């Protein structure tokens, strides 16, 4: 009996039909392959975890976005909403203290997004975690891997916006307001409400020129070469009043120094052109402690990936260990790729089926076995079709007919 609800799936979930599913798997495989070339090993964790384990991955200023359920003992479980926190749990509890650890993953995560925004609630992430390495070399390694993973699926035009959580920290150190106001500053910066941020900073007594200058730096994007120019600016600034305004606010100097180092290594990889520094880049997860980044591509209004350094997260699980990583959103990447990118690569040969049919079932099966051993994809039709019926069916499926009958065609 068919009931009204039987065809529905929960909001934010989707079916992957033939073709789509293959394209997605192909993209995931290619990215993992590219990442594995850097010596990363795959890890997998359960879809479901205890609720409190996953909490550090959530933005705690709002309500969490976890799908929750209870097990039969009444404990609260949740579907993983990202992979970094579960992996941090594994590292702290199951892996030897043998650092650095290079781990990669590809899997589904669940996030209870507002459905009206058109986002999916189940989505696939491919990413890496580089555990136990401090410093700009490690940061630039994960950035370079992200770039190569995207190139591996054929994405060419993308920009990585690089920021640093130190922006907020240095703002807060020079901040005279209270905790609530500081939280507000964080949220305003996260939402990129620069209008609100400006009035909030003014409200806690920051001078107008200073507010303008900090906002100026927060809303500017710097290419790798802009960053170099900034470095030399202070000397010139002393002779030239005009350029003073352009000088780095001392609050941001440390952050810039760190980012410059990361970019220095990226240059060695030859990837500095994919990067721009944007100090307003922040991630919603609160576990980030250093550089953070988001990846953008034309035509997609959201980031297609992001990541950063999270040196404190492992402490939550009782280990004190530096870490950095990223996650790429597979669905969003697929949206930004031309439709046929994976089909072409698969090759015409492999893509098309062979339909083996004939009057003698034994011969049909034997012939099919032979073809499969050569790597062909074979469908059999042993139900006594005439040759013309078989031809028709093959054409309908876009398959090549291999007839094993009296008038058997010789080759495929």
């Amino acid at each position, binding site marked *: 009996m068919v009931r009204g609800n039987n065809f529905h799936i929960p909001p934010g979930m989707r079916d992957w039909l033939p073709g789509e599913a293959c394209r997605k798997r192909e993209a995931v495989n290619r990215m993992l392959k590219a990442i594995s070339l850097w010596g990363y090993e795959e890890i997998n964790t359960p879809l479901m975890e205890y609720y409190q384990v996953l909490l550090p991955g959530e933005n705690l200023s709002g309500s969490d976005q976890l799908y929750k359920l209870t097990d039969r003992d009444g404990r609260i479980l949740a579907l993983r909403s990202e992979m970094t926190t579960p992996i941090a749990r594994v590292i702290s509890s199951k892996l030897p203290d043998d650092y650095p650890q290079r781990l990669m993953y590809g899997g589904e995560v669940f996030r209870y997004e*507002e459905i009206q*925004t*058109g986002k999916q609630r189940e989505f696939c992430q491919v990413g890496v975690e580089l555990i136990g390495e401090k410093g700009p070399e490690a940061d630039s390694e994960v950035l370079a891997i992200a770039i190569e993973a995207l190139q591996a699926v054929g994405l060419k035009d993308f*920009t990585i*916006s690089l920021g640093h959580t130190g922006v907020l920290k240095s703002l807060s150190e020079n901040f005279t307001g209270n905790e609530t106001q500081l939280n507000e500053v964080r949220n305003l910066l996260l*939402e*990129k*409400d*620069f*209008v*609100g941020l400006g009035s909030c900073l003014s409200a806690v007594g920051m001078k107008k020129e200073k507010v303008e200058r900090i906002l100026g730096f927060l*809303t*500017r*994007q710097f290419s790798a070469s802009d960053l170099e120019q900034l470095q030399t600016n202070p000397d010139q600034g002393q002779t030239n009043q005009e350029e003073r305004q352009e000088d780095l606010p001392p609050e941001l100097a440390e952050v810039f120094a760190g980012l410059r180092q990361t970019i220095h290594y990226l240059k060695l990889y030859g990837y500095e052109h994919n990067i*721009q520094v*944007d100090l307003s880049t922040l991630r919603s997860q609160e576990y980030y402690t250093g550089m953070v980044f*988001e990846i*953008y*591509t*034309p*035509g*997609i*209004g*959201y*980031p297609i990936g992001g990541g950063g350094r999270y040196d404190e997260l492992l402490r939550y699980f009782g280990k004190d260990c530096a870490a950095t990583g990223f996650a790429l959103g597979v669905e969003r990447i697929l949206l930004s790729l031309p439709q046929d990118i994976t089909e072409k690569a698969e090759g015409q040969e492999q893509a098309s089926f062979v339909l083996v049919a004939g009057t003698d079932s034994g011969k049909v099966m034997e012939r099919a076995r032979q073809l499969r051993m050569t790597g062909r994809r074979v469908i059999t039709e042993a139900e006594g079709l005439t040759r013309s019926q078989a031809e028709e069916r093959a054409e309908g499926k876009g398959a090549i007919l291999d007839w094993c009958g009296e008038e058997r065609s010789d080759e495929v």
Partner: protein
Amino acid sequence: MKYNLTIAMPKGKLFEPARMLLEKCGLSYPGLSDEARTLIFEDKEKLVNYIVCRPTDIPTYVEHGAADLGIVGKDSILEANRNLYELVDLKFGYCRFAAAVPREALSADGKFTWKQGLRIATKFPTVAKEYVRKKGLQAEIIKLHGNIELAPRVGLADVIVDIVSTGRTLKENNLVVLEFMGEATARLIVNRASYRLKSKEINGLVAEIKRILETEGGELS
């Protein structure tokens, strides 16, 4: 200058000041109007596309990247609660959020007693819910699409939450403001990805807008 941008323009009272502001930035397009049948205008010379749409939809267009930039009131931004970047306060289109009740609902000394379970009619359910939550009240929010001031007169609601610019509509409908809960002006909003990928064009336009706002002050409002 070529911009290669799509700008979402709000229909209605914000349209004219928004159009004038862009015109002063050198972005004028003959025939750009919110009353024409056309909703898309293509300036092939400067490579700017204008989309004319309802203010409440502008945050959606911009969030999804259908438009790179949008000009819209803070009221619509607050209500839409979208993931987008707010770059410039354009200063025009000033209004305030207010909670108002019929005059006869006030006590003799002009006070209003909040009771649990009041009905609040509003175009801004998100804003109204937040207001009610902050006051620690329970209330039933009734979403309407316009002419909110009608609701208390016909017994649909006890309180309204709406934007007020001059206060004339309230007065004409015998409503009094209980309290103001925030101000709103028009803002320039931008899509997250466009902000990164078209930063040069966007920052060029933003600088121009800021320069004009500085020199002309409040003249636009």
